[in-house]
């Protein structure tokens, strides 16, 4: 089994600032981490590898400092890491991102054919969840999103059994390999990294590719140029008119609220058990 996990470096905090000139996130204003959903994706790859044996590669796109999330993935248990990094990738929306990553996957699979791609459900800085299915379409493999369990991997039949979360409940899906999964956090718990992984990660130097290292790339599909969506404007939503403030001491506030709830508005009632 060769599993490729796509990971993203994201800003860690909610106090990240927005650059008023470009209306984009000022990524320098917050510490960068491995997207939490992607950590679960790497962990799931490790769990699958324990049963099937094989190789786990991680792939990321970003500036040179994004090697940090590849090292983090090595700590969790990945074997190899690839970073595609080039100014031409900058400003990509989800469509241009899935294009660039699929080109890198093409190159990776030349060395070692890919049996499965795993992504996090979404990245916490964009919350879109659109890149995973996009990669699957470009590779022409089936995507299975919102995965909460990989129940069985059958290497002989080249199939996998998956539980996929639905609005209410889940569905059990059988997919052919290769396929692409996007995983929910509940799929596993991140385990403590064993010491050999930590040592390996500390010394690990991922492979870094520029656009020129990838094959058959149409440059017009990369980065800002290849992105059909743009941020038109940023605005503070119209503030709805606030309601009534309950003033006074805490006792007075509580009794006013009780009066509103139980009497004035008759919202809550006591169902007598007698």
């Amino acid at each position, binding site marked *: 089994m060769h599993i490729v996990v796509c990971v993203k470096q994201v800003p860690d905090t909610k106090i990240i*600032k927005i650059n008023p000139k470009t209306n984009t*996130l000022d990524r320098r204003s917050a510490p960068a981490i491995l997207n939490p959903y992607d950590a679960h994706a790497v962990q799931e790859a490790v769990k699958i590898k324990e049963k099937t044996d094989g190789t786990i590669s991680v792939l990321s796109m970003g500036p040179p400092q994004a090697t940090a999330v590849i090292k983090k993935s090595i700590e969790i248990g990945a074997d190899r890491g690839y970073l595609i990094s080039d100014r031409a990738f900058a400003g990509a929306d989800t469509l241009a991102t899935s294009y660039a990553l699929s080109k890198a996957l093409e190159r990776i699979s030349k060395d070692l054919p890919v049996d499965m791609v795993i992504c996090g459900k979404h990245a916490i800085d964009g919350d879109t969840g659109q890149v995973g*299915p996009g990669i699957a379409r470009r590779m022409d493999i089936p995507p299975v*999103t919102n995965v909460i369990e990989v129940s069985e991997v059958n290497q002989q039949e080249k199939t996998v059994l998956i539980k996929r979360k639905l609005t209410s409940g889940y569905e059990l*899906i059988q997919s052919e390999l290769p396929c692409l999964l996007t995983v929910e956090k509940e799929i596993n718990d991140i385990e403590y990294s064993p010491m050999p992984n930590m040592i390996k990660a500390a010394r690990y130097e991922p492979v870094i590719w520029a656009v020129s290292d990838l094959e058959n790339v149409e440059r017009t599909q990369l980065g800002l140029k290849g992105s*059909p969506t*743009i941020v038109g404007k940023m605005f503070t939503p119209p503030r709805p008119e*606030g309601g009534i403030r309950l003033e006074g001491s805490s006792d007075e506030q*509580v009794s006013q609220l009780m009066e509103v709830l139980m009497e004035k508005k008759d919202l809550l009632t006591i169902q007598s058990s007698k």
Partner: protein
Amino acid sequence: MNLDDFRGVWIFIEQNDGKIEGVSLELLGAGRKLADKLQVPLSGFLLGSEIKSLANQVIAYGADQVYMVDHPVLKNYRTESYMKGVMLLAEKYKPEIILYGATPNGKDLASAVATDLNTGLTADTTMLDVDVDNRLLEASRPAFGGNIMATILCKKHRPQMATVRPKVMKALEPDTSRLGKIIEESISLQEEDMRTKVLRIVNDVTKKANLADAHVIVCGGKGMGDLQNFQLIHELADTIGASVGGTRDVVEAGWLPHEQQVGQTGETVTPKIYFAIGISGAIQHVVGMKNSEFIIAINKDPNAPIFDVATYGIVGDAMEIVPKLIEQFKQLRTEKGGEISYA
């Protein structure tokens, strides 16, 4: 690409087991306004197996036309079969706007279709409008960090697509006297060509019913301080027969499981009574609860944005107010001998 070849507003009508998802009906309501502004028809498109009886409902909720692709292979949602159906319709009829509910299936489908149509897709939209002069969809969503919305545009590609959060838009009152056109498209699909199979669907409503259908929700935020103080939220909820919710911070701190998260990346809720306790009111949270009927906010900071959406606000320390509130309710229960619930 000639943008003028594309006309019309389309809504993906998601059905599961012959039942139309609520968000699809909400989108017909929102889409009606967009279509009227652009002076084009509003269409619903529907894929599945033996779904013909659903067309009239789509029209009653505001559509002028319904496109249907009915095939046994489309019985259960699968990306590969459904996207073939959508591609067939979109390439033949060229709508300028397609909206999908931001459900697991809607998001999955829209992401795949956007890739094959090589067009833009905006995720988890909470506000929709059109710039009529330029025929541009203005799809707005909360931007990461801060109380700010971003409007996403797709200027040079068609169709313009967005997924829209459930329970944010309002469905129209159904009008069964409305007339509309039903257009059936045939598709050739073979089960043998499918690379995925749905073996079983397990409905587990227990987790969901908790928040989505609750009449009363007590929701706590990071302002509760720690896990121990957060127990006050559980205690208040227990006392008045409410469900417990939490903000993203609370879920990330591990105080509550993800199923109980209210907000942009959690559940959107519309209960009769919503208690927001120790919650500042970041926009990611507010979009998930602002349509609740009666909102009570308790927060130390008088300038917290949560007070802007609250029906009643108490500026004060939750650690002081909530125990008193619990005590009052408990006393009332003992006096009258019964359980408290929504009237």
